[in-house]
């Protein structure tokens, strides 16, 4: 919203003050001001009122005319002018020699053979409107030679307030409310708004009007006729233009002007079309043509203004085309109303049509303002068009009153909330300036919230704190730390585990952490032959690529691996992120936190890469929880899983996740020559695994013994089991030192380390244990290699 400092000046005397500093202060105390401030008129000078005394056609040009202009000087000035609307007796804006218009300085110059000693200007050329159809046609009685800046508000400072920072302040949607803030910040009085007293018309008949729906809070109306002015006064048009609105005609401009001034949207109906105002909703949907010519779909929730049963306007949003003021309108019915803000907002969303009016209504406008606005409208109307005649008494139905808000607090409350000392007198002065009724006895305060702040904005004591502190100025705060009791802080275990995992994977295994999106990437999945598995979907997805939530990070990670095949011949990536595994019985998402790791290598065999990843998992769990892992074969159920090399990862009997080779159909689409393996672990489950304590065992002081045995076996598992089965306290360690394959089959060499804490072991007792292991394995069909 654009704000004119001239307009503000109507309501508070800011003379002698630094306007820029005030605007800056406003931004820090009230609402955000956009950076660019416009100094209107600063690039225009030397433009005066002048009368065209004669018009001669140019002998060589059909467009140009030779004028003699009275610019207030002793002699008429010769000017060559190309405007189509020149006429004798016309008063216009005249840029004298030496005048400045933007970058141009006016100098005498020949134009098609004749000297032109100045320039007649369009409104656009002097920056007060978009109109460039002809030179400015001044109807005001201004002596020739008068600098236009002395009669019109061409010089102005315009700033833009970010609308988003006004969502909670219905009172700031017009200049008067903004002026109140400036008055408070400047410590100067706010002038009352001048209105026309409507009491003299009380004897006139009322307008036939009824609110039939609780969504209308208040409806005020007045009938006026004999309005003869068609074009708005120049100053009104300049303000509208500077504030981003186009001048249309006097009545339309006046309603807009009033909205920009008081924040109260108004509407003028042609009284011929609206004689029986009814405010209601309809049971059946229908279409309705608004004054912008658009057919709009109206449903049963949309509040309408009707002429009896014929809709004439969408309440609070836009008037209808049929009831609009037209050229031959003689009598108009003025509407000034408030409606339920939520209803307006919903209708706006449904109609996808946001207007200057609806934008204000949805902020919860103050119903107290409707009648004031009519009084103000009439004052401005009569000032310009004194012949206008009021033909009804003020018709006003006030169906819904916001409850008055009164808040009590004491100084201790303010001190506690602010952490600083603000004197009672400052509190009283600030609140009073903002229009609050303040009673102060000792350290106790009772505050009556003004109606324009009481529609939703100020409801609790904390709101009062804001009023006091924002005007006090946050830059003026004494800043200090909190005084609170100290207790130990226990880190959330899941966060700790997450940090440990990241450090380990980055620092020990040189993996790269990536982030991806939580939904399936349709296009990229398709390219890799990955299936988008059915899962919870976004209800308001606008794009199929942002629609279905992922069930696993792996597919999105594989897409990222595909993206990076040229990065290095071998690399690994990981992400700790979240997935959704469908809905639970209460229809809520089953959300899981996962660690996903993918390794890519053109340098290693699939097998060695798989073991590298397996070892990573083992180190990770050993590090984080001092536990070991076991693995179980899994059936492939997802498009990326390998039918053979796919295992569940278990710890303490609980499945933590899975590890697998990427299915060749997917893998080859990523890179034909690369080995790709992945794992996914449930971080929450890993966190819940009980941390195994460290049990210290003093190393034996006596020499130990090592025995190597090579067994003919495909797998280590039976060997490991047999070693565990003999349950001998002197076995300290079993290490696989090699696996071989030759004509006799696969074999595994294991080195057992023996020792005793109190003595040197004999060869006999060691061999006794070895024999038992060999025996046990023999029964399983696993023999020692000869």
């Amino acid at each position, binding site marked *: 919203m654009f704000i004119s400092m001239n307009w503000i000046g109507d309501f508070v005397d800011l003379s002698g003050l630094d306007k820029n500093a005030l605007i800056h202060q406003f931004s820090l105390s009230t609402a955000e001001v956009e950076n660019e401030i416009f100094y209107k008129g600063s690039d225009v000078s030397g433009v005066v009122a002048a009368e065209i005394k004669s018009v001669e056609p140019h002998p060589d040009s059909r467009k140009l005319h030779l004028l003699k202009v009275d610019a207030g000087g002793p002699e008429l000035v010769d000017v060559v002018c190309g405007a189509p609307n020149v006429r004798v007796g016309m008063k216009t804006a005249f840029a004298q020699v030496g005048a400045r218009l933007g970058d141009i300085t006016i100098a005498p110059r020949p134009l098609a053979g004749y000297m032109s000693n100045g320039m007649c200007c369009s409104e656009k050329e002097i920056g007060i409107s978009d109109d460039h159809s002809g030179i400015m046609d001044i109807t005001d009685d201004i002596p020739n030679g008068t600098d236009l800046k002395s009669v019109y508000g061409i010089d102005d400072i315009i700033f833009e307030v970010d609308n988003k920072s006004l969502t909670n302040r219905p009172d700031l949607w017009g200049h008067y409310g903004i002026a109140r803030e400036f008055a408070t910040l400047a410590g100067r009085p706010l002038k009352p708004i001048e209105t026309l007293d409507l009491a003299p018309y009380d004897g006139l008949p009322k307008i036939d009007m009824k609110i039939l729906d609780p969504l209308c809070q208040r409806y005020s109306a007045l009938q006026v006729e004999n309005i003869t002015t068609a074009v708005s006064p120049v100053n009104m048009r300049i303000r509208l233009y500077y504030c981003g609105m186009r001048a249309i005609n006097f009545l339309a401009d006046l309603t807009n002007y009033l909205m920009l001034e008081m924040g109260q949207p108004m509407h003028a109906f042609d009284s011929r079309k609206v004689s029986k105002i009814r405010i209601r909703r309809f049971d059946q949907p229908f279409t309705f043509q608004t004054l912008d010519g658009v057919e709009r779909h109206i449903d049963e929730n949309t509040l309408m203004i009707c002429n009896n049963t014929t809709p004439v306007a969408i309440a609070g949003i836009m008037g209808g085309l049929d009831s609009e003021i037209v050229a031959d309108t003689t009598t108009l019915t003025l509407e000034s109303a408030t409606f339920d803000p939520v209803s307006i907002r919903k209708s706006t969303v449904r109609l996808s049509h946001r207007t200057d009016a609806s934008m204000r209504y949805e902020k919860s406008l103050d119903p107290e303002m409707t009648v004031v606005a009519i009084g103000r409208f009439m004052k401005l109307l009569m000032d310009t068009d004194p012949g206008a005649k009021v033909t009804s008494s003020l018709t006003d139905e006030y169906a819904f009153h916001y409850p008055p808000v009164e808040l009590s607090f004491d100084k201790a409350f303010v001190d506690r*909330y602010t952490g600083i000392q603000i004197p009672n007198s400052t509190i009283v002065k600030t609140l009073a300036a903002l229009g609050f009724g303040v009673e102060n006895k000792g350290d106790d305060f009772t505050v009556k919230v003004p109606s324009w702040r009481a529609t939703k904005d100020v409801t609790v004591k904390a709101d009062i704190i804001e009023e006091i502190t924002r005007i006090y100025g946050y830059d003026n705060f004494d800043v200090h730390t909190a005084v609170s009791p100290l207790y130990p*802080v226990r*880190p959330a275990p899941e966060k700790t585990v997450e940090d440990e995992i990241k450090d380990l994977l980055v620092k020990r295994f040189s993996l790269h952490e990536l982030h991806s999106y*939580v939904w399936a990437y349709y296009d990229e999945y398709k390219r890799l032959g990955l299936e988008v598995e059915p899962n919870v979907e976004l209800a308001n997805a606008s794009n199929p690529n942002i629609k279905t*939530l992922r069930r696993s990070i792996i597919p999105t990670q594989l897409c990222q691996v595909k993206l990076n095949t040229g990065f*290095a011949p071998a690399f690994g990536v990981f992400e700790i992120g*979240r997935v959704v595994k469908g809905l639970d019985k209460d*229809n809520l998402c089953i959300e899981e936190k996962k660690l996903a790791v993918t390794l890519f290598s053109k340098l290693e065999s699939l097998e060695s890469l798989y073991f590298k990843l397996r070892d990573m998992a083992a180190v990770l769990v050993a590090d984080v929880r001092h536990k070991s892992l076991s693995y179980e074969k899994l059936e492939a159920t997802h498009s990326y899983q390998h039918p053979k090399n796919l295992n569940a990862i278990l710890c303490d009997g609980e499945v933590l996740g899975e590890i697998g080779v990427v299915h060749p159909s997917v893998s080859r689409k990523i890179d034909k020559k690369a080995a790709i393996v992945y794992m996914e672990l449930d971080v929450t489950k890993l966190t819940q695994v009980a941390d195994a304590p460290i049990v210290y065992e003093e190393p034996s002081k006596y020499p130990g013994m090592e025995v190597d045995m090579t067994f003919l076996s495909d797998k280590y598992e039976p060997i490991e089991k047999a070693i565990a089965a003999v349950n001998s306290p002197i076995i300290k360690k079993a290490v696989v030192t090699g696996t071989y394959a030759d004509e006799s089959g696969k074999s595994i060499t294991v080195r057992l380390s023996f020792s005793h804490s109190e003595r040197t072991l004999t060869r006999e007792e060691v061999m006794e244990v070895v024999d038992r292991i060999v025996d046990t394995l023999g029964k399983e069909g696993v023999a020692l290699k000869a």
Partner: protein
Amino acid sequence: MNHEIAALTEKFEAELKKIENALDLENMRVAYLGKKGSVTAILKSMGNLSADERRQLGQEVNELKDRVADRIAARKEELQALELKRQIEAVGEFDLSLPPDLDRGSYHPITLVQRQCENVFKSMGFTVEDYKEVVSDYECFESLNIPKFHPARDMQDTYYLENGQLLKSQTSAAQNAIYRKYRKALVEDGTPIKAIFPGRCFRNEATDACHENTFFQMEGVMVDKNISISNLIFFMKTMLSEVFQRDIKVRLRPGFFPFVEPGFELDINCLICGGEGCPSCKHSGWLELCPCGMIHPEVLRMGGIDPEEYTGFAFGLGLTRLAMMKYGIADIRDLNGGSLASMCQFTGDQ
């Protein structure tokens, strides 16, 4: 001197000169000083000598023994020195100007800035909480004093799910749960609530270099009996100064967020121009960084905390924004894009 000893001494010296390695030297030691060695053999011939001669010869043999042993030990040292020299010469001079093979992993830049922020708050006794990404309307809006059709919902276009839940549009969605988790300790033991909760957030908007539908925030709250606006400014300024490792100027402006009252927009002096004004700060000298405020009494009440007795502040820091500022990342999409060429550069905690 016994002529045998003289001859042996001469022979020994001649042989010793030829010895070039430790093994030959050891063999030579055995040949002379061993049980069957030449020196020992001289003693064996002492049987037919007189006692005086025997004593005389014995003494000379012992002297010879000592001399031989010394000479061998000396030669051994020489050989060892020679061997070391050979070893040293066998090795070339290594060229350390060759580039190192670092093979370093990398953290996501969000992880790095998140940890920096966490560490600052941890050092001031805040706990770090983790929260889910799919939340209810109550968590994300109702419990934060944002009823349905409140204009504030306009500010964030939320991703709703088909079951009525939603992807959290702000980390504030965890506030209610945090209050409920710690209210007992607050009320019964007087332990202030001091928590931060970083997390991924989602907004339904078109992406470009400056807009993302998936980004990270970090929320922080502190609740106790006398928490004030003054404290809020202190903690914000301290945290940001620690994160950016320099004295940061902050300024507060009124900002409207339904879950705080008063609510603020916190600006910091532009890090690029230092406040002079530059394109990064749109020539204002300030950067809008972090919405914050005093927790709205209704929000505390819904969290089970009596707002008449307790006050608190809350803030929301855009971690994504912070990471971009800190590392000069111009395109926000790089953060979720997954390109290792970009992401591999964030190798350590800094």
